[in-house]
């Protein structure tokens, strides 16, 4: 009846996951009860859960990423404590639990923190920057988000019911095959990634189509803001790379469920094929994450330097070059596995070449700052911190791209330090910069600068104190994923790294405090102009938060830096606006399709993990029925009458004009 599921699935003998799971469960229940008792449920349902507004979906993506960042972060804290105390002792974590933690940490941080964070920011900002009303497929957008949430839910379920993979974050066979991992851990891993991967693919298709087909009047390709370009590149990579992940995981699942022989040791299976396939997805994945961050830095650096981006066209070229080259370097992930010197040399060179366009970008940001009026607001701090950190990460990257050096550093803590260096210093700093920069646009008030700066400095310092020791430990020969060790030289570095982790955690606490304090002082921090940073692109041309339709009119773009251009012209014309003729606006109707679909996907995923076949069929029928019901509805759009558009737009314009004339009087 319940497949492999019985009471032994719940780890009564292990206090840590049980207590953690219990606390989370109580927390969720408390929030749910509070929501229901206070009567917020209808608001949540109508305004958020069923919303197809790209801004709301973007915010929900970022919220999901933030929650999962805390989960993945607590895994990291546990690992650093374990390695600090596990010198000539077992430490405080049993080995099989430690193995689950490092696998979950990697999986969560890449798939459920970095991905939803950047997709959330792209969702929130790109339609605004393009001057349009929504993404190409609004309902599909909601489906994509909720499927991602399903994946995250399944990973967290594994904490209490059953176990998570002990294979590392990419589940290499034959370790992940049934004979070596007979439990449900790998199944949790594979199904949660499979489901959220569909969500990511959907988001990718949506954003590619949005950028290529939905730009406002006059927005030629070479007038798009840099963030739109990097979004395009990143989502092209998603469309090209995520199907590879889907196919690879499908093959692994066929091996595990039906006794196929793709990657097994017997009957002719080929383990190297898994390495090739998974890294053919995995390496582009790195650029899927970091390219949007590059876009964010481009926006931030140019805004806070008060200058147009230096070398815009070379930046576009560099972005697209990275997009292409990222598919030609995957083999550097297994230089040591006997491909031979010729193959290694070619992929080594390709891996080093990708540093060239990245270098172009760094110089462009530096030249943008040169001679500019730089304001060191929090987003700018993250951008500058990024440049310093990412250069170090890039240099160590070029180092491990040299095959002979890689033979020494392969699988060592040096490598761990390198990829945290680029992922934290690149993607996470970018995500935080974007968060600080676009927060006022999403919610209508700025974030507290003092707490923001503290968060930056603690995170920045904590990052170096944590990861520089790992470089050293790697040079001293320490390999990754050690549960305990007997080498005295490594120990001091592990203790310093644990201290660094504590500093890093203070940074995270500061960021939470920043949010709390800013929400409390939101009236004082209110942004009534819609343009709190003196921005240059179109998202600042509308109010904060924007009305549901974003723009009363599709803006007419005349050049790069569209909004900057408009502001200059407006000053010249001393704000003489014609009263525009408003028209009715059609907007997509809210739809529970995404939520209901994800509900059935959750049931199906859970049933597949535990081999509960009747429930799988039930979930499948439910998901299909949802699509049919969605296809059957008669009214998928509603009309906002011109009078209402006019009323909303006039209030915004009045507010803005009063502020501008006030500024003029001073």
């Amino acid at each position, binding site marked *: 009846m319940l497949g492999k599921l019985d009471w032994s699935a719940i780890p009564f003998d292990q206090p840590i996951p049980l207590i953690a799971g219990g606390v989370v469960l109580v927390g969720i229940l408390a929030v749910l009860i509070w929501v229901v008792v206070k009567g917020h449920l209808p608001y949540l349902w109508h305004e958020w859960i069923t919303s197809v507004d790209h801004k709301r979906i973007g915010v929900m993506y970022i919220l999901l990423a933030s929650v999962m960042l805390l989960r993945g972060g607590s895994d990291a804290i546990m690992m650093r404590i374990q390695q600090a105390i596990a010198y000539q002792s077992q430490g405080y974590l049993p080995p099989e639990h430690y193995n689950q933690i490092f696998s979950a940490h990697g999986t969560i941080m890449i798939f459920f923190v970095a991905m939803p964070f950047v997709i959330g920011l792209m969702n929130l900002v790109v339609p605004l920057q393009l001057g*349009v009303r929504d993404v*190409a*497929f609004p309902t599909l957008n909601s489906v994509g988000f909720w499927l991602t949430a399903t994946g995250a839910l399944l990973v967290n379920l594994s904490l209490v019911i059953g176990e998570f993979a002990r294979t590392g974050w990419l589940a290499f066979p034959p370790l992940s095959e049934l004979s070596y991992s007979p439990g449900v851990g790998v199944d949790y891993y594979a199904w949660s990634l499979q489901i959220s991967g569909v969500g990511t*693919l959907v988001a*990718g*298709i*949506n954003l*590619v*189509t949005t950028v*290529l*087909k*939905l*730009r*406002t*009047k*006059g*927005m*030629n390709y070479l007038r798009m803001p840099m963030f739109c370009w990097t979004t395009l590149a990143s989502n092209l990579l998603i*469309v*090209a790379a*995520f*199907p*590879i992940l*889907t*196919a*690879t995981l499908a*093959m692994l699942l*066929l091996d595990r469920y*039906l*006794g*196929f*022989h*793709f990657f*097994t040791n*017997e*009957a*002719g*299976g*080929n383990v190297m*094929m898994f390495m090739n*396939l998974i890294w053919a997805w995995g390496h582009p994945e790195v650029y899927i994450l970091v390219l949007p961050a590059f876009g964010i830095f481009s926006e931030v650096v140019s805004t806070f330097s008060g200058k147009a981006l230096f070398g815009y066209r070379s930046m576009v070229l560099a972005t697209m070059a990275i997009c292409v080259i990222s598919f030609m370097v995957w083999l550097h992930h297994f230089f040591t596995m006997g491909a031979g010197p010729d193959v290694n040399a070619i992929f080594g060179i390709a891996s080093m070449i990708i540093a060239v366009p990245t270098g172009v970008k760094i110089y462009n940001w530096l030249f943008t700052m040169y001679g500019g009026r730089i304001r060191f607001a929090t987003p700018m701090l993250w951008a500058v911190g990024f440049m310093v950190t990412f250069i170090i990460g890039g240099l160590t990257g070029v180092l491990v791209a040299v095959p002979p050096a890689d033979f020494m550093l392969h699988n060592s803590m040096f490598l761990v330090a390198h990829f945290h260096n680029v992922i934290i210093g690149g993607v996470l700093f970018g995500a935080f910069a974007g968060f600080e920069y676009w927060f006022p646009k999403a919610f209508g008030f700025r974030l507290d600068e003092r707490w923001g700066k503290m968060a930056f400095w603690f995170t920045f310092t904590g990052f170096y104190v944590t990861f520089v020791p790992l470089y050293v430990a790697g040079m001293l020969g320490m390999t990754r994923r050690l549960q305990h060790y007997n080498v005295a030289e490594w120990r001091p570095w592990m203790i310093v790294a644990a201290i660094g982790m504590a500093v890093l955690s203070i940074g995270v606490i500061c960021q939470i405090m920043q949010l709390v304090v800013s929400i409390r002082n939101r009236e004082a921090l209110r942004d009534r102009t819609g343009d709190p940073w003196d921005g240059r692109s179109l998202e600042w041309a509308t109010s904060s938060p924007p009305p549901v339709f974003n723009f009363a009119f*599709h803006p007419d*773009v*005349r*050049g790069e830096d569209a909004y900057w251009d408009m502001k200059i012209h407006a000053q010249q014309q001393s704000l003489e606006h014609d009263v525009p003729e408003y028209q009715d606006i059609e907007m997509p109707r809210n739809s529970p399709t995404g939520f209901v679909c994800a509900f059935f996907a959750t049931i199906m995923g859970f049933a597949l993990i535990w081999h509960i076949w009747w429930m799988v069929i039930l979930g499948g029928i439910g998901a*299909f029925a949802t699509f*049919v019901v969605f*296809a*059957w509805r*008669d009214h*998928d759009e509603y009309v906002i009458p011109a009078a209402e558009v006019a009323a909303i737009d006039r209030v915004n314009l009045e507010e803005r004009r009063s502020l501008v004339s006030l500024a003029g009087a001073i």
Partner: protein
Amino acid sequence: MAMTATVGHAHADPHHIGVVIEHPGPAPKRTVTAYGFWVFLLSDIVMFSCFFAAYAVLVSQTADGPKGSEIFEQRNVAIETVCLLLSSFTCGMASIAADVRNRFWFYLGMAVTCVLGLIFLAIEFKEFADLVARGYGPSRSAFLTAFFSLVGCHGLHVSAGVLWLLTMMAQVFAKGFRADVLRRMMCFALFWHALDIIWVGVFSVVYLLGSGV
């Protein structure tokens, strides 16, 4: 299509070429939908290419089991191919009928497409069942694993296509040729034709090349 050339003012023409291509604004819904679906199809083809690659890597790994030339039956494959290619034609007829709002030819075209698809699936199913009955199932060797997965993945797509086809017929029956139904019909047709293209790949790489080994 969407682009129009206009003589621009100096501001829009930084290089003083004299002619600038001004972007006219968001594309119409039909274009956007078709474009998005094309992007999806490309991603689907990438997924198939992984199974093709796996087949190419594993084709000689027979683990003392049968080789391709020992199990493939050219006659069946020929019938399957004819069915699928014909169904693409009838699907095209149904699309044209939908465009000119002709219900009779639409239903007829779709029904024939459906029957041809089902014949294709039946032959494939029988081929698989026979192989399993002879002890040549997918777990016999890595070659058979790759064969069953690649061909089965295509079969799964055809099955999904048949389900979609029936849903489309029901939609036209219930809603008529509404704009959104027509957009979906266009996507379905693209999907069905793409399956045909992939079958040409399967049939060449698996059956034609495989029979020579």
